[in-house]
Protein backbone atom coordinates (compact mmCIF):
# COMPACT_ATOMS: atom_id res chain seq x y z
CA UNK A 1 0.00 0.00 0.00
CA UNK A 2 1.45 3.32 -0.91
CA UNK A 3 0.34 6.79 -0.08
CA UNK A 4 1.93 9.96 -1.24
CA UNK A 5 3.11 12.16 1.60
CA UNK A 6 0.53 14.62 0.53
CA UNK A 7 -2.67 12.56 0.74
CA UNK A 8 -4.14 14.50 -2.11
CA UNK A 9 -1.45 13.47 -4.52
CA UNK A 10 -2.96 10.03 -4.23
CA UNK A 11 -6.36 11.35 -5.17
CA UNK A 12 -6.91 11.75 -8.83
CA UNK A 13 -5.64 9.75 -11.73
CA UNK A 14 -7.24 12.22 -14.05
CA UNK A 15 -6.96 15.96 -14.04
CA UNK A 16 -10.43 16.74 -12.87
CA UNK A 17 -10.18 20.41 -12.10
CA UNK A 18 -12.34 21.48 -14.98
CA UNK A 19 -15.14 19.22 -13.86
CA UNK A 20 -15.70 20.66 -10.45
CA UNK A 21 -17.11 24.10 -10.02
CA UNK A 22 -14.67 25.47 -7.56
CA UNK A 23 -11.44 27.36 -7.93
CA UNK A 24 -8.53 28.30 -5.81
CA UNK A 25 -8.39 31.41 -3.72
CA UNK A 26 -10.64 34.37 -3.55
CA UNK A 27 -10.22 37.89 -4.84
CA UNK A 28 -9.86 40.57 -2.16
CA UNK A 29 -12.85 42.84 -2.77
CA UNK A 30 -10.90 45.85 -1.60
CA UNK A 31 -7.77 45.16 -3.61
CA UNK A 32 -6.64 48.32 -5.35
CA UNK A 33 -9.26 50.51 -3.67
CA UNK A 34 -7.73 53.73 -2.33
CA UNK A 35 -8.18 53.99 1.42
CA UNK A 36 -7.61 57.68 1.98
CA UNK A 37 -10.59 59.37 3.60
CA UNK A 38 -11.80 62.39 1.58
CA UNK A 39 -10.28 65.35 3.41
CA UNK A 40 -13.43 67.36 4.07
CA UNK A 41 -15.19 64.61 5.98
CA UNK A 42 -15.74 64.35 9.72
CA UNK A 43 -13.95 61.13 10.53
CA UNK A 44 -15.91 60.42 13.70
CA UNK A 45 -19.11 60.76 11.73
CA UNK A 46 -17.90 58.45 8.98
CA UNK A 47 -16.73 55.86 11.51
CA UNK A 48 -20.15 55.95 13.17
CA UNK A 49 -21.85 55.39 9.83
CA UNK A 50 -19.64 52.41 9.03
CA UNK A 51 -20.51 50.97 12.42
CA UNK A 52 -24.21 51.36 11.72
CA UNK A 53 -24.08 49.39 8.50
CA UNK A 54 -21.53 46.97 9.92
CA UNK A 55 -23.46 46.24 13.09
CA UNK A 56 -26.62 45.61 11.05
CA UNK A 57 -24.78 42.93 9.13
CA UNK A 58 -22.93 41.48 12.13
CA UNK A 59 -26.02 41.09 14.29
CA UNK A 60 -28.14 39.76 11.42
CA UNK A 61 -25.41 37.25 10.63
CA UNK A 62 -25.43 36.08 14.25
CA UNK A 63 -29.13 35.29 14.04
CA UNK A 64 -28.55 33.32 10.85
CA UNK A 65 -25.67 31.42 12.45
CA UNK A 66 -28.07 30.31 15.17
CA UNK A 67 -30.09 28.48 12.51
CA UNK A 68 -27.17 26.23 11.53
CA UNK A 69 -28.13 22.57 12.22
CA UNK A 70 -31.76 23.69 12.64
CA UNK A 71 -32.77 24.51 9.08
CA UNK A 72 -35.94 22.86 7.70
CA UNK A 73 -34.01 20.99 5.02
CA UNK A 74 -30.34 20.29 4.41
CA UNK A 75 -30.23 22.40 1.26
CA UNK A 76 -31.39 25.32 3.38
CA UNK A 77 -28.47 24.76 5.74
CA UNK A 78 -26.23 25.74 2.86
CA UNK A 79 -28.35 28.69 1.84
CA UNK A 80 -28.59 30.08 5.37
CA UNK A 81 -24.88 29.60 6.00
CA UNK A 82 -24.15 31.29 2.67
CA UNK A 83 -26.22 34.35 3.60
CA UNK A 84 -24.64 34.40 7.06
CA UNK A 85 -21.18 34.29 5.52
CA UNK A 86 -21.97 37.08 3.07
CA UNK A 87 -23.24 39.36 5.84
CA UNK A 88 -20.33 38.47 8.09
CA UNK A 89 -18.01 39.43 5.26
CA UNK A 90 -19.75 42.77 4.84
CA UNK A 91 -19.56 43.33 8.60
CA UNK A 92 -15.84 42.66 8.64
CA UNK A 93 -15.19 45.14 5.83
CA UNK A 94 -17.39 47.80 7.40
CA UNK A 95 -16.03 47.37 10.91
CA UNK A 96 -12.53 47.35 9.50
CA UNK A 97 -13.24 50.63 7.74
CA UNK A 98 -14.75 52.11 10.88
CA UNK A 99 -11.62 51.30 12.85
CA UNK A 100 -9.35 52.62 10.14
CA UNK A 101 -11.24 55.90 9.87
CA UNK A 102 -11.53 56.31 13.62
CA UNK A 103 -7.76 55.98 13.89
CA UNK A 104 -7.72 54.82 17.51
CA UNK A 105 -6.12 51.45 16.82
CA UNK A 106 -9.32 49.40 16.99
CA UNK A 107 -9.60 46.64 14.40
CA UNK A 108 -12.65 44.58 13.36
CA UNK A 109 -12.28 42.24 16.35
CA UNK A 110 -11.79 45.00 18.92
CA UNK A 111 -14.97 46.59 17.65
CA UNK A 112 -16.97 43.36 17.47
CA UNK A 113 -15.88 41.87 20.79
CA UNK A 114 -15.07 44.73 23.13
CA UNK A 115 -17.96 47.14 22.67
CA UNK A 116 -20.94 46.89 25.01
CA UNK A 117 -24.54 46.80 23.84
CA UNK A 118 -25.01 50.54 24.26
CA UNK A 119 -22.25 51.18 21.72
CA UNK A 120 -23.80 49.03 19.02
CA UNK A 121 -25.59 51.00 16.31
CA UNK A 122 -27.65 48.35 14.53
CA UNK A 123 -31.34 48.76 13.80
CA UNK A 124 -33.57 46.78 16.11
CA UNK A 125 -34.80 44.61 13.23
CA UNK A 126 -31.41 42.88 13.14
CA UNK A 127 -31.43 41.71 16.72
CA UNK A 128 -34.92 40.21 16.84
CA UNK A 129 -35.18 36.49 17.46
CA UNK A 130 -37.01 34.14 15.10
CA UNK A 131 -39.78 32.07 16.65
CA UNK A 132 -39.89 29.83 13.58
CA UNK A 133 -38.72 29.64 9.97
CA UNK A 134 -41.51 31.95 8.80
CA UNK A 135 -40.23 34.63 11.16
CA UNK A 136 -36.70 34.18 9.83
CA UNK A 137 -37.67 34.61 6.19
CA UNK A 138 -39.98 37.52 6.98
CA UNK A 139 -37.18 39.32 8.76
CA UNK A 140 -34.68 38.43 6.06
CA UNK A 141 -37.05 39.70 3.37
CA UNK A 142 -37.54 43.04 5.07
CA UNK A 143 -33.83 43.35 5.80
CA UNK A 144 -32.83 42.53 2.23
CA UNK A 145 -35.48 44.70 0.55
CA UNK A 146 -34.07 47.59 2.59
CA UNK A 147 -30.37 46.80 2.39
CA UNK A 148 -30.26 46.10 -1.34
CA UNK A 149 -31.21 49.59 -2.57
CA UNK A 150 -29.05 51.03 0.20
CA UNK A 151 -25.95 49.19 -0.98
CA UNK A 152 -26.84 49.98 -4.57
CA UNK A 153 -26.81 53.71 -3.88
CA UNK A 154 -23.72 53.33 -1.75
CA UNK A 155 -21.76 52.39 -4.88
CA UNK A 156 -21.83 56.13 -5.68
CA UNK A 157 -20.30 57.12 -2.33
CA UNK A 158 -17.39 59.53 -2.28
CA UNK A 159 -15.68 57.21 0.16
CA UNK A 160 -14.05 54.70 -2.16
CA UNK A 161 -14.11 51.89 0.37
CA UNK A 162 -17.84 52.27 1.01
CA UNK A 163 -18.43 52.33 -2.73
CA UNK A 164 -16.52 49.08 -3.16
CA UNK A 165 -18.35 47.46 -0.25
CA UNK A 166 -21.63 48.54 -1.83
CA UNK A 167 -20.69 47.01 -5.17
CA UNK A 168 -19.78 43.66 -3.63
CA UNK A 169 -22.81 43.68 -1.37
CA UNK A 170 -25.32 44.32 -4.14
CA UNK A 171 -24.60 40.96 -5.78
CA UNK A 172 -24.89 39.18 -2.47
CA UNK A 173 -28.05 40.84 -1.17
CA UNK A 174 -29.77 40.36 -4.53
CA UNK A 175 -29.50 36.67 -3.87
CA UNK A 176 -30.57 36.99 -0.21
CA UNK A 177 -33.67 38.91 -1.22
CA UNK A 178 -34.57 36.30 -3.80
CA UNK A 179 -34.15 33.48 -1.32
CA UNK A 180 -36.33 35.20 1.27
CA UNK A 181 -38.94 36.25 -1.28
CA UNK A 182 -39.30 32.75 -2.69
CA UNK A 183 -39.81 31.35 0.78
CA UNK A 184 -42.32 34.00 1.80
CA UNK A 185 -44.32 33.19 -1.33
CA UNK A 186 -44.09 29.43 -0.79
CA UNK A 187 -45.18 29.70 2.81
CA UNK A 188 -47.80 32.37 2.19
CA UNK A 189 -49.33 30.41 -0.67
CA UNK A 190 -48.60 26.89 0.57
CA UNK A 191 -50.79 25.15 3.13
CA UNK A 192 -53.36 26.78 5.42
CA UNK A 193 -50.99 26.23 8.33
CA UNK A 194 -48.04 27.86 6.58
CA UNK A 195 -50.22 30.77 5.49
CA UNK A 196 -51.22 31.40 9.09
CA UNK A 197 -47.62 31.27 10.28
CA UNK A 198 -46.42 33.54 7.50
CA UNK A 199 -49.19 36.01 8.28
CA UNK A 200 -48.16 36.03 11.95
CA UNK A 201 -44.52 36.49 11.04
CA UNK A 202 -45.14 39.47 8.77
CA UNK A 203 -47.33 41.07 11.42
CA UNK A 204 -44.65 40.48 14.04
CA UNK A 205 -41.86 42.05 12.00
CA UNK A 206 -43.75 45.06 10.64
CA UNK A 207 -43.37 47.35 13.68
CA UNK A 208 -39.60 47.20 13.15
CA UNK A 209 -39.87 48.57 9.60
CA UNK A 210 -40.30 52.25 10.43
CA UNK A 211 -36.89 52.59 12.07
CA UNK A 212 -35.19 51.46 8.87
CA UNK A 213 -36.19 54.63 7.05
CA UNK A 214 -35.63 57.20 9.79
CA UNK A 215 -32.72 59.43 8.84
CA UNK A 216 -30.21 59.71 11.65
CA UNK A 217 -28.22 62.92 11.93
CA UNK A 218 -25.04 61.04 11.01
CA UNK A 219 -26.73 59.80 7.85
CA UNK A 220 -28.10 63.26 7.06
CA UNK A 221 -24.69 64.95 7.35
CA UNK A 222 -22.88 62.30 5.36
CA UNK A 223 -25.60 62.03 2.70
CA UNK A 224 -25.30 65.77 2.16
CA UNK A 225 -21.56 65.20 1.70
CA UNK A 226 -22.16 62.50 -0.92
CA UNK A 227 -20.84 59.70 1.25
CA UNK A 228 -23.84 58.05 2.88
CA UNK A 229 -27.31 57.05 1.72
CA UNK A 230 -30.32 58.79 3.20
CA UNK A 231 -32.51 55.84 4.14
CA UNK A 232 -35.73 57.81 3.76
CA UNK A 233 -35.15 57.73 0.01
CA UNK A 234 -35.27 53.95 0.00
CA UNK A 235 -38.88 53.65 1.12
CA UNK A 236 -40.58 53.64 -2.29
CA UNK A 237 -38.31 50.91 -3.63
CA UNK A 238 -38.78 48.89 -0.47
CA UNK A 239 -42.56 49.25 -0.64
CA UNK A 240 -42.64 48.23 -4.29
CA UNK A 241 -40.63 45.06 -3.69
CA UNK A 242 -42.56 44.13 -0.53
CA UNK A 243 -45.89 44.69 -2.26
CA UNK A 244 -44.97 42.38 -5.11
CA UNK A 245 -43.81 39.62 -2.82
CA UNK A 246 -46.72 39.88 -0.41
CA UNK A 247 -49.22 39.86 -3.26
CA UNK A 248 -47.68 36.71 -4.72
CA UNK A 249 -47.74 35.23 -1.21
CA UNK A 250 -51.48 36.04 -0.92
CA UNK A 251 -50.73 38.19 2.13
CA UNK A 252 -51.98 41.69 2.74
CA UNK A 253 -49.55 44.35 3.82
CA UNK A 254 -49.90 45.27 7.49
CA UNK A 255 -50.72 48.80 8.59
CA UNK A 256 -47.64 50.84 9.33
CA UNK A 257 -47.19 51.05 13.07
CA UNK A 258 -43.68 51.80 14.12
CA UNK A 259 -42.80 50.68 17.61
CA UNK A 260 -42.01 53.62 19.84
CA UNK A 261 -38.79 54.21 21.68
CA UNK A 262 -35.25 55.39 21.10
CA UNK A 263 -33.42 54.11 18.10
CA UNK A 264 -30.95 51.27 17.87
CA UNK A 265 -28.93 53.75 15.81
CA UNK A 266 -28.26 55.60 19.07
CA UNK A 267 -27.36 52.49 21.00
CA UNK A 268 -30.79 51.79 22.49
CA UNK A 269 -31.46 48.08 22.27
CA UNK A 270 -33.70 45.48 23.82
CA UNK A 271 -32.56 42.52 25.90
CA UNK A 272 -32.06 40.54 22.70
CA UNK A 273 -28.85 42.31 21.82
CA UNK A 274 -27.52 41.70 25.32
CA UNK A 275 -28.09 37.98 24.86
CA UNK A 276 -26.48 38.02 21.44
CA UNK A 277 -23.38 39.82 22.67
CA UNK A 278 -23.07 37.61 25.74
CA UNK A 279 -22.85 34.61 23.42
CA UNK A 280 -20.65 36.26 20.79
CA UNK A 281 -18.17 37.97 23.08
CA UNK A 282 -17.83 35.58 25.99
CA UNK A 283 -14.71 33.66 25.01
CA UNK A 284 -12.84 36.62 23.53
CA UNK A 285 -13.41 38.64 26.68
CA UNK A 286 -12.60 35.73 29.00
CA UNK A 287 -9.16 35.37 27.43
CA UNK A 288 -7.83 38.83 26.66
CA UNK A 289 -4.41 38.59 25.10
CA UNK A 290 -5.33 35.26 23.50
CA UNK A 291 -4.23 34.80 19.90
CA UNK A 292 -6.59 32.86 17.69
Amino acid at each position, binding site marked *: *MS*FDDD*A*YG*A*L*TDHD*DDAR*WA*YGTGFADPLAGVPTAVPGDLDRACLAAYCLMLGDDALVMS*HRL*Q*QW*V*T*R*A*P*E*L*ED*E*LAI*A*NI*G*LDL*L*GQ*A*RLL*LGRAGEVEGAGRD*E*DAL*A*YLRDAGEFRNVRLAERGDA*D*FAHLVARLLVFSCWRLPLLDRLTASRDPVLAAIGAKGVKEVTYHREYAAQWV*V*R*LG*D*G*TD*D*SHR*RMRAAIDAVWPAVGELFETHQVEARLAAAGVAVDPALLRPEFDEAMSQVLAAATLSKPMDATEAGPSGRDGAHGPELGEILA*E*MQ*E*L*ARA*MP*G*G*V*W
Partner: protein
Amino acid sequence: MSDLAAPSAGERVFAETIAKDQRVEPRDWMPDGYRKTMIRQIAQHAHSEIIGMQPEGAWITRAPTLRRKAILLAKVQDEAGHGLYLYSAAETLGADRGDLTRRLIEGRQKYSSIFNYPTPTFADVGVIGWLVDGAAICNQVPLCRSSFGPYARAMIRICKEESFHQRQGYELLMTMMRGTPEQRAMVQEATNRWWWPSLMMFGPPDADSPNSAQSMAWKIKRHSNDELRQRFVDMSVPQAEALGVTLPDPELRWNAERGQHDFGEIDWVEFKKVIAGGGPLNEQRIAHRRRADEEGAWVREAAAAHAAKQAAAAHAAKQAAANQAAANTAAARPAAAERAAGRAEGRA
Protein backbone atom coordinates in the same frame (compact mmCIF):
# COMPACT_ATOMS: atom_id res chain seq x y z
CA MET B 1 -31.72 -15.45 -6.80
CA SER B 2 -28.81 -16.35 -9.00
CA ASP B 3 -28.88 -19.21 -11.43
CA LEU B 4 -26.34 -21.71 -10.18
CA ALA B 5 -25.66 -22.97 -13.67
CA ALA B 6 -24.06 -20.21 -15.73
CA PRO B 7 -23.54 -16.60 -14.57
CA SER B 8 -25.78 -14.08 -16.32
CA ALA B 9 -24.34 -11.41 -18.58
CA GLY B 10 -24.88 -8.88 -15.80
CA GLU B 11 -22.99 -10.95 -13.27
CA ARG B 12 -20.12 -11.41 -15.70
CA VAL B 13 -19.88 -7.72 -16.45
CA PHE B 14 -20.02 -6.91 -12.74
CA ALA B 15 -17.22 -9.37 -11.89
CA GLU B 16 -15.11 -8.06 -14.75
CA THR B 17 -15.67 -4.44 -13.75
CA ILE B 18 -14.53 -5.17 -10.21
CA ALA B 19 -11.57 -7.24 -11.36
CA LYS B 20 -10.39 -4.47 -13.69
CA ASP B 21 -10.71 -1.85 -10.96
CA GLN B 22 -13.35 0.02 -12.92
CA ARG B 23 -16.52 1.68 -11.70
CA VAL B 24 -19.94 0.18 -11.26
CA GLU B 25 -22.59 2.72 -12.26
CA PRO B 26 -26.19 3.01 -11.01
CA ARG B 27 -27.90 1.25 -13.90
CA ASP B 28 -25.49 -1.67 -14.00
CA TRP B 29 -26.48 -5.07 -12.68
CA MET B 30 -25.14 -5.59 -9.16
CA PRO B 31 -25.61 -8.25 -6.49
CA ASP B 32 -28.31 -7.45 -3.98
CA GLY B 33 -25.77 -7.61 -1.18
CA TYR B 34 -23.57 -5.08 -2.95
CA ARG B 35 -26.47 -2.67 -3.40
CA LYS B 36 -27.59 -3.02 0.22
CA THR B 37 -24.06 -2.70 1.61
CA MET B 38 -23.41 0.33 -0.56
CA ILE B 39 -26.61 2.07 0.49
CA ARG B 40 -25.89 1.45 4.15
CA GLN B 41 -22.26 2.54 3.95
CA ILE B 42 -23.01 5.68 1.95
CA ALA B 43 -25.99 6.55 4.17
CA GLN B 44 -23.98 6.15 7.36
CA HIS B 45 -21.25 8.27 5.90
CA ALA B 46 -23.84 10.92 5.00
CA HIS B 47 -25.38 10.79 8.47
CA SER B 48 -21.92 11.27 9.97
CA GLU B 49 -21.42 14.47 8.01
CA ILE B 50 -24.76 15.88 9.13
CA ILE B 51 -24.41 14.90 12.79
CA GLY B 52 -20.80 16.10 12.57
CA MET B 53 -22.07 19.64 12.02
CA GLN B 54 -23.26 19.78 15.62
CA PRO B 55 -20.09 19.56 17.74
CA GLU B 56 -18.37 22.34 15.84
CA GLY B 57 -21.54 24.19 14.91
CA ALA B 58 -21.96 24.99 18.58
CA TRP B 59 -18.88 27.23 18.41
CA ILE B 60 -19.80 29.40 15.42
CA THR B 61 -21.66 32.03 17.41
CA ARG B 62 -18.93 32.03 20.05
CA ALA B 63 -15.80 32.04 17.90
CA PRO B 64 -13.30 34.53 19.39
CA THR B 65 -12.42 36.36 16.16
CA LEU B 66 -14.47 37.22 13.08
CA ARG B 67 -11.99 35.41 10.84
CA ARG B 68 -12.31 32.19 12.86
CA LYS B 69 -16.05 32.62 12.83
CA ALA B 70 -16.13 32.84 9.05
CA ILE B 71 -13.82 29.86 8.64
CA LEU B 72 -15.87 27.72 11.01
CA LEU B 73 -19.17 28.70 9.39
CA ALA B 74 -17.74 27.77 5.98
CA LYS B 75 -16.46 24.46 7.31
CA VAL B 76 -19.78 23.46 8.86
CA GLN B 77 -21.53 24.53 5.68
CA ASP B 78 -19.21 22.21 3.75
CA GLU B 79 -20.22 19.36 6.02
CA ALA B 80 -23.86 19.87 5.14
CA GLY B 81 -22.78 19.84 1.53
CA HIS B 82 -20.85 16.61 1.99
CA GLY B 83 -23.91 14.99 3.53
CA LEU B 84 -25.88 16.09 0.49
CA TYR B 85 -23.37 14.74 -2.04
CA LEU B 86 -23.53 11.41 -0.21
CA TYR B 87 -27.32 11.24 0.10
CA SER B 88 -27.42 12.00 -3.60
CA ALA B 89 -25.06 9.07 -4.26
CA ALA B 90 -27.26 6.78 -2.13
CA GLU B 91 -30.33 7.87 -4.05
CA THR B 92 -28.78 6.68 -7.32
CA LEU B 93 -29.17 3.20 -5.83
CA GLY B 94 -32.89 3.68 -5.24
CA ALA B 95 -32.71 4.82 -1.61
CA ASP B 96 -34.82 7.79 -0.50
CA ARG B 97 -33.37 10.53 1.65
CA GLY B 98 -36.49 10.91 3.78
CA ASP B 99 -36.39 7.21 4.53
CA LEU B 100 -32.68 7.29 5.36
CA THR B 101 -33.23 10.23 7.71
CA ARG B 102 -36.01 8.31 9.42
CA ARG B 103 -33.66 5.35 9.95
CA LEU B 104 -31.00 7.60 11.47
CA ILE B 105 -33.44 9.22 13.87
CA GLU B 106 -34.85 5.86 14.91
CA GLY B 107 -31.40 4.45 15.52
CA ARG B 108 -31.62 1.89 12.70
CA GLN B 109 -28.66 3.38 10.89
CA LYS B 110 -25.50 4.62 12.53
CA TYR B 111 -23.11 7.51 12.18
CA SER B 112 -19.48 7.82 13.17
CA SER B 113 -19.38 7.67 16.94
CA ILE B 114 -16.60 10.25 17.10
CA PHE B 115 -19.32 12.86 17.02
CA ASN B 116 -20.77 11.69 20.30
CA TYR B 117 -18.03 13.45 22.22
CA PRO B 118 -18.53 16.99 23.55
CA THR B 119 -16.60 20.10 22.50
CA PRO B 120 -16.13 22.05 25.73
CA THR B 121 -13.39 24.43 24.50
CA PHE B 122 -12.46 26.31 21.36
CA ALA B 123 -9.28 24.24 21.14
CA ASP B 124 -11.59 21.30 20.40
CA VAL B 125 -12.44 23.02 17.11
CA GLY B 126 -8.79 22.98 16.15
CA VAL B 127 -8.17 19.42 17.33
CA ILE B 128 -11.22 18.13 15.49
CA GLY B 129 -9.86 19.69 12.32
CA TRP B 130 -6.40 18.23 12.91
CA LEU B 131 -7.20 14.74 14.19
CA VAL B 132 -10.79 13.91 13.34
CA ASP B 133 -10.70 15.36 9.83
CA GLY B 134 -7.20 13.95 9.50
CA ALA B 135 -8.48 10.46 10.29
CA ALA B 136 -11.44 10.99 7.97
CA ILE B 137 -9.07 11.94 5.17
CA CYS B 138 -7.05 8.76 5.74
CA ASN B 139 -10.25 6.78 5.42
CA GLN B 140 -11.60 8.75 2.51
CA VAL B 141 -8.68 9.07 0.12
CA PRO B 142 -8.72 5.33 -0.66
CA LEU B 143 -12.50 5.50 -1.07
CA CYS B 144 -11.95 7.76 -4.07
CA ARG B 145 -11.14 4.48 -5.80
CA SER B 146 -14.16 2.67 -4.38
CA SER B 147 -15.91 0.53 -6.96
CA PHE B 148 -19.25 2.35 -7.00
CA GLY B 149 -18.95 5.34 -9.35
CA PRO B 150 -21.19 7.95 -7.69
CA TYR B 151 -19.64 7.20 -4.29
CA ALA B 152 -16.08 7.44 -5.61
CA ARG B 153 -16.85 10.73 -7.35
CA ALA B 154 -18.50 12.15 -4.24
CA MET B 155 -15.42 11.13 -2.26
CA ILE B 156 -13.09 12.97 -4.64
CA ARG B 157 -15.09 16.14 -4.23
CA ILE B 158 -15.27 15.70 -0.46
CA CYS B 159 -11.56 15.04 -0.12
CA LYS B 160 -10.66 18.19 -1.99
CA GLU B 161 -12.85 20.26 0.33
CA GLU B 162 -11.64 18.37 3.39
CA SER B 163 -8.07 19.58 2.89
CA PHE B 164 -9.27 23.04 3.89
CA HIS B 165 -10.88 21.56 6.97
CA GLN B 166 -7.79 19.87 8.29
CA ARG B 167 -5.54 22.82 7.56
CA GLN B 168 -7.78 25.37 9.26
CA GLY B 169 -7.84 23.20 12.39
CA TYR B 170 -4.10 22.72 12.46
CA GLU B 171 -3.48 26.40 11.79
CA LEU B 172 -5.72 27.37 14.70
CA LEU B 173 -3.73 25.07 16.97
CA MET B 174 -0.41 26.46 15.74
CA THR B 175 -1.66 29.95 16.50
CA MET B 176 -2.89 29.01 19.95
CA MET B 177 0.39 27.26 20.78
CA ARG B 178 2.12 30.59 20.16
CA GLY B 179 -0.34 32.29 22.50
CA THR B 180 -0.85 32.41 26.25
CA PRO B 181 0.02 29.57 28.65
CA GLU B 182 -3.71 29.11 29.16
CA GLN B 183 -4.16 28.57 25.43
CA ARG B 184 -1.31 26.09 25.23
CA ALA B 185 -2.80 24.14 28.10
CA MET B 186 -6.16 24.19 26.35
CA VAL B 187 -4.66 22.66 23.21
CA GLN B 188 -2.87 19.90 25.13
CA GLU B 189 -5.97 19.09 27.12
CA ALA B 190 -8.13 18.86 24.00
CA THR B 191 -5.54 16.64 22.34
CA ASN B 192 -5.64 14.35 25.36
CA ARG B 193 -9.38 13.93 24.93
CA TRP B 194 -9.53 13.42 21.16
CA TRP B 195 -6.50 11.24 20.38
CA TRP B 196 -7.91 7.84 21.35
CA PRO B 197 -11.41 8.44 19.91
CA SER B 198 -9.72 9.43 16.62
CA LEU B 199 -7.90 6.09 16.53
CA MET B 200 -11.24 4.38 17.12
CA MET B 201 -12.63 6.03 13.98
CA PHE B 202 -10.90 3.35 11.95
CA GLY B 203 -13.12 0.69 13.46
CA PRO B 204 -12.38 -2.55 15.27
CA PRO B 205 -9.13 -4.46 14.69
CA ASP B 206 -9.10 -6.46 11.45
CA ALA B 207 -9.51 -9.71 13.33
CA ASP B 208 -12.81 -8.51 14.80
CA SER B 209 -14.20 -7.00 11.63
CA PRO B 210 -16.59 -9.52 10.05
CA ASN B 211 -17.97 -7.47 7.17
CA SER B 212 -14.58 -6.37 5.92
CA ALA B 213 -13.78 -9.39 3.78
CA GLN B 214 -16.83 -9.06 1.52
CA SER B 215 -16.41 -5.28 1.29
CA MET B 216 -12.78 -5.75 0.26
CA ALA B 217 -13.75 -8.36 -2.35
CA TRP B 218 -16.25 -5.97 -3.87
CA LYS B 219 -13.66 -3.17 -3.67
CA ILE B 220 -16.06 -1.04 -1.68
CA LYS B 221 -13.33 -0.93 0.96
CA ARG B 222 -9.78 -0.66 -0.32
CA HIS B 223 -7.62 -1.00 2.83
CA SER B 224 -8.05 -2.68 6.17
CA ASN B 225 -8.87 -0.89 9.42
CA ASP B 226 -5.47 -1.60 10.95
CA GLU B 227 -3.57 -0.46 7.86
CA LEU B 228 -5.34 2.87 7.84
CA ARG B 229 -5.02 3.32 11.57
CA GLN B 230 -1.29 2.71 11.39
CA ARG B 231 -0.97 5.20 8.57
CA PHE B 232 -2.85 7.82 10.58
CA VAL B 233 -0.57 7.37 13.60
CA ASP B 234 2.55 7.63 11.45
CA MET B 235 1.29 10.88 9.87
CA SER B 236 0.11 12.45 13.12
CA VAL B 237 3.23 11.93 15.25
CA PRO B 238 5.41 14.44 13.38
CA GLN B 239 2.45 16.84 13.21
CA ALA B 240 2.12 16.67 17.01
CA GLU B 241 5.84 17.28 17.38
CA ALA B 242 5.69 20.32 15.11
CA LEU B 243 2.83 21.63 17.21
CA GLY B 244 4.59 21.02 20.50
CA VAL B 245 1.91 18.78 22.03
CA THR B 246 2.34 15.31 23.50
CA LEU B 247 0.10 12.49 22.31
CA PRO B 248 -1.43 10.77 25.36
CA ASP B 249 0.08 7.33 24.78
CA PRO B 250 3.12 6.32 26.83
CA GLU B 251 3.67 3.32 24.53
CA LEU B 252 3.89 5.42 21.39
CA ARG B 253 7.37 5.07 19.89
CA TRP B 254 9.14 4.69 16.59
CA ASN B 255 9.93 1.11 15.65
CA ALA B 256 12.91 1.18 13.29
CA GLU B 257 12.51 -2.47 12.33
CA ARG B 258 8.92 -2.05 11.17
CA GLY B 259 9.51 1.45 9.84
CA GLN B 260 6.34 2.49 11.68
CA HIS B 261 5.24 3.66 15.14
CA ASP B 262 4.24 1.22 17.84
CA PHE B 263 1.29 2.42 19.88
CA GLY B 264 -0.75 1.35 22.86
CA GLU B 265 -3.86 -0.77 23.05
CA ILE B 266 -7.19 0.91 22.36
CA ASP B 267 -9.90 0.59 24.99
CA TRP B 268 -12.31 -1.51 22.95
CA VAL B 269 -14.78 -1.65 25.80
CA GLU B 270 -15.35 2.08 25.55
CA PHE B 271 -15.47 1.80 21.77
CA LYS B 272 -18.24 -0.80 21.90
CA LYS B 273 -20.14 1.19 24.50
CA VAL B 274 -20.13 4.35 22.40
CA ILE B 275 -21.02 2.47 19.20
CA ALA B 276 -23.96 0.90 21.01
CA GLY B 277 -25.33 4.31 21.93
CA GLY B 278 -23.72 4.83 25.31
CA GLY B 279 -21.48 7.71 24.35
CA PRO B 280 -21.66 11.02 26.21
CA LEU B 281 -23.88 12.79 23.73
CA ASN B 282 -25.51 10.10 21.61
CA GLU B 283 -29.00 11.02 22.71
CA GLN B 284 -28.53 14.75 22.35
CA ARG B 285 -27.11 14.48 18.84
CA ILE B 286 -30.04 12.42 17.62
CA ALA B 287 -32.59 14.49 19.53
CA HIS B 288 -31.22 17.64 17.91
CA ARG B 289 -31.49 16.09 14.44
CA ARG B 290 -34.98 14.80 15.19
CA ARG B 291 -36.17 18.19 16.38
CA ALA B 292 -34.84 19.95 13.29
CA ASP B 293 -36.51 17.37 11.08
CA GLU B 294 -39.84 17.61 12.91
CA GLU B 295 -39.85 21.39 13.11
CA GLY B 296 -39.09 21.57 9.42
CA ALA B 297 -41.96 19.32 8.36
CA TRP B 298 -44.55 22.08 7.95
CA VAL B 299 -42.08 24.08 5.86
CA ARG B 300 -41.32 21.19 3.53
CA GLU B 301 -45.03 20.42 3.18
CA ALA B 302 -45.81 24.03 2.38
CA ALA B 303 -43.16 24.11 -0.35
CA ALA B 304 -44.54 20.92 -1.87
CA ALA B 305 -48.09 22.29 -1.70
CA HIS B 306 -47.04 25.52 -3.36
CA ALA B 307 -45.24 23.65 -6.13
CA ALA B 308 -48.34 21.54 -6.72
CA LYS B 309 -50.51 24.64 -6.98
CA GLN B 310 -48.08 26.19 -9.46
CA ALA B 311 -48.02 23.02 -11.54
CA ALA B 312 -51.83 22.83 -11.54
CA ALA B 313 -52.12 26.47 -12.56
CA ALA B 314 -49.59 26.00 -15.36
CA HIS B 315 -51.45 22.92 -16.57
CA ALA B 316 -54.79 24.73 -16.49
CA ALA B 317 -53.33 27.65 -18.42
CA LYS B 318 -51.91 25.31 -21.03
CA GLN B 319 -55.26 23.53 -21.31
CA ALA B 320 -57.11 26.82 -21.70
CA ALA B 321 -54.71 27.94 -24.41
CA ALA B 322 -55.13 24.64 -26.25
CA ASN B 323 -58.93 24.89 -26.02
CA GLN B 324 -58.81 28.43 -27.34
CA ALA B 325 -56.65 27.41 -30.26
CA ALA B 326 -59.01 24.55 -31.08
CA ALA B 327 -61.99 26.89 -30.89
CA ASN B 328 -60.29 29.34 -33.24
CA THR B 329 -59.59 26.60 -35.75
CA ALA B 330 -63.21 25.33 -35.58
CA ALA B 331 -64.54 28.86 -36.07
CA ALA B 332 -62.35 29.33 -39.12
CA ARG B 333 -63.51 26.13 -40.84
CA PRO B 334 -67.19 26.97 -41.67
CA ALA B 335 -66.09 30.23 -43.37
CA ALA B 336 -63.51 28.37 -45.45
CA ALA B 337 -66.12 25.73 -46.38
CA GLU B 338 -68.53 28.45 -47.54
CA ARG B 339 -65.93 30.03 -49.74
CA ALA B 340 -65.07 26.63 -51.24
CA ALA B 341 -68.78 25.88 -51.81
CA GLY B 342 -69.17 29.29 -53.45
CA ARG B 343 -66.33 28.60 -55.82
CA ALA B 344 -67.83 25.17 -56.65
CA GLU B 345 -71.18 26.81 -57.36
CA GLY B 346 -69.48 29.32 -59.55
CA ARG B 347 -67.96 26.56 -61.61
CA ALA B 348 -71.09 24.50 -61.87
